[in-house]
């Protein structure tokens, strides 16, 4: 995804104060690129759903502007909303409707002429075809989730919001969901999803945004984020036991395993100063022999936890300073 690509959604200085006086979003600025998969991460109550709801027109922004495909979402709500499909976080369905009716209803509601072929295609792609005449209340939670996706796709949106699509979903369905996202992406649909499963973001997202306490604290290309913030580990499997780590390596983050057979070197892959080959030469210079080596990279999850903790630390300091 190049940064020169078109912004399909542009959010400027968005604030949301709920009736209760609670500030759920604080000057959020965000550009979402056409065709990308953007994952929004953040702890419970961070403001992810509020942000999505504001873009979709469910929550009224207190201030700031949101444009979708260049159109203001309030003034040109007919244009902007017909571009968007939303799969909400809560499993809300009309218990007594059939799958077919509820999905067809969604298409009509979004102003599209009936198209049974399209509805059939959507239901088939979500493995819901054989359930089309079932009442919603007879479906399992995972199937209801798919029905909500089918409803969102019924009107052929160009932007799809998935608010925690894989919450409470088993592994195989989660993998299915990833495939669906991938498929839509190849069709050029822009996808914004929230999730608490960080491996999910790692798996399918192009960019990652982190929200905490109503602020967008980070927005980055996933790969850049991983390499910039990621810690790497080099693990050496030693030929002979090592009694102690030589003092020469004191400044480095080296850990010797209890059985004295594994030596783990943790380094910041973003920092300029480290150099693995130099390290390995030094090791050999100390006559430490190894029979195998491997490197591992820290997961997004660790990055995320570090980030949120850091942000919390910052606000704590802010409070202390006052």
């Amino acid at each position, binding site marked *: 995804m190049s940064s020169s690509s078109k912004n399909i959604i542009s959010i400027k200085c968005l604030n949301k104060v*709920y*009736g209760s006086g609670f500030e759920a979003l604080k000057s959020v600025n965000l550009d979402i690129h056409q065709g990308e998969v953007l994952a929004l991460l953040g702890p419970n109550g961070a403001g992810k759903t509020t942000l999505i*709801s504001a873009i*979709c*027109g*469910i*929550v*009224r922004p207190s201030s700031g502007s949101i444009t979708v495909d260049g159109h203001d979402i309030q003034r040109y*709500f*007919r*244009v*902007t*909303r*017909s571009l*968007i499909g*939303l799969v*909400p976080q*809560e499993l*809300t*369905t*009309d*218990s*007594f*409707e059939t799958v077919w*009716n509820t999905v*067809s*209803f*969604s*298409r*009509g*509601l*979004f*102003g*599209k*002429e*009936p198209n049974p072929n399209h509805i059939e295609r959507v239901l088939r792609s979500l493995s819901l075809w054989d359930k089309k005449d079932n009442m919603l209340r007879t479906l399992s939670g995972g199937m209801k989730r798919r029905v909500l996706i089918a*409803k969102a796709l019924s009107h052929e949106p160009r932007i799809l919001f998935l608010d925690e699509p894989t919450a409470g979903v088993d592994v195989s369905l989660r993998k299915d969901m990833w495939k669906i996202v991938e498929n839509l992406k190849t069709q050029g649909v822009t996808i914004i999803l929230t999730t608490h499963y960080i491996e999910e973001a790692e798996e399918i997202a192009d960019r990652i945004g982190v929200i905490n306490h109503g602020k967008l604290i980070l927005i980055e290309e996933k790969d850049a984020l991983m390499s910039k913030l990621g810690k790497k580990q080099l693990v050496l499997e030693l030929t002979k036991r090592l009694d102690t780590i030589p003092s020469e390596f004191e400044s480095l983050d080296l850990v010797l395993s209890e059985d004295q057979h594994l030596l783990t070197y943790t380094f910041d892959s973003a920092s300029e100063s480290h150099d693995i080959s130099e390290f390995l030469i030094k090791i050999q210079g100390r006559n430490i022999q190894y029979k195998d080596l491997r490197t591992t990279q820290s997961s997004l999850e660790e990055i995320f936890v570090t980030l949120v903790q850091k942000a919390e630390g910052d606000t704590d300091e802010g409070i202390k300073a006052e």
Partner: protein
Amino acid sequence: MNIHGVIAIFNYEMARMKRTLIQSIVAPVVTTSLYFVVFGAAIGSRIQQVEGVSYGAFIVPGLIMLSLLTNSISNASFGIYFPKFSGTVYEMLSAPISAMEVVLGYVGAAAAKSVILAMIILATAGFFIDLEIRHPVLMLIFVFLTATSFSLFGFILGIWADNFEKLSVVPTLLITPLVFLGGSFYSTEMLPPIWQTVALMNPVLYLVSGLRWSFYEISEVNVFVSLSCIGVFTLLCLAVIAIIFRTGYRLRA
């Protein structure tokens, strides 16, 4: 104009009626028959005639009004209350559909249902008495306007209500008493003078009176007064709905 959206809401609401076909159609037939057995046959055998029409025929417009008011209100209020309650309203709020189009869908369906019920009641009444309708077009206008305005009122009620109790309190504690006291089953001329004056403060009296005039050319108040009342009430409800949507009241956080 999102015409597909309006049709989708309308059909969805009508489908609800089809699902509860027995309750929707058989219930009014049974209750209407009961009214005729109890009021028409038992009481009517003693009253004989009111203002020149048989008692059985006299109560037909009142029965229709009672059904129109309670059904319009409950259909429309439940129609919009339920998505709010279940959370499915998110879809409507995120759809490219204007407030007035949403109203058109819900209120249109609720009014259509009440009109159908009114016609079922009218047909049932035909089994018990000889029906005569002097001004059928005016009768239909009254039925249609009443169904529309009270469906609008029901829509407002459904948006205002945040629990099931509030939803049912208005129809049972306000509308039903007003209909019974509004000359549906008797002529106010049968009342002592003081109560005749009090009865004139009951808006439902104007509706029943107007509808009855379209049947038999007998009325408590001038038929044009009745028509204006219902017209003003419709405009009032529309104004309230416009304000509700402008402020996002109880729909958008």
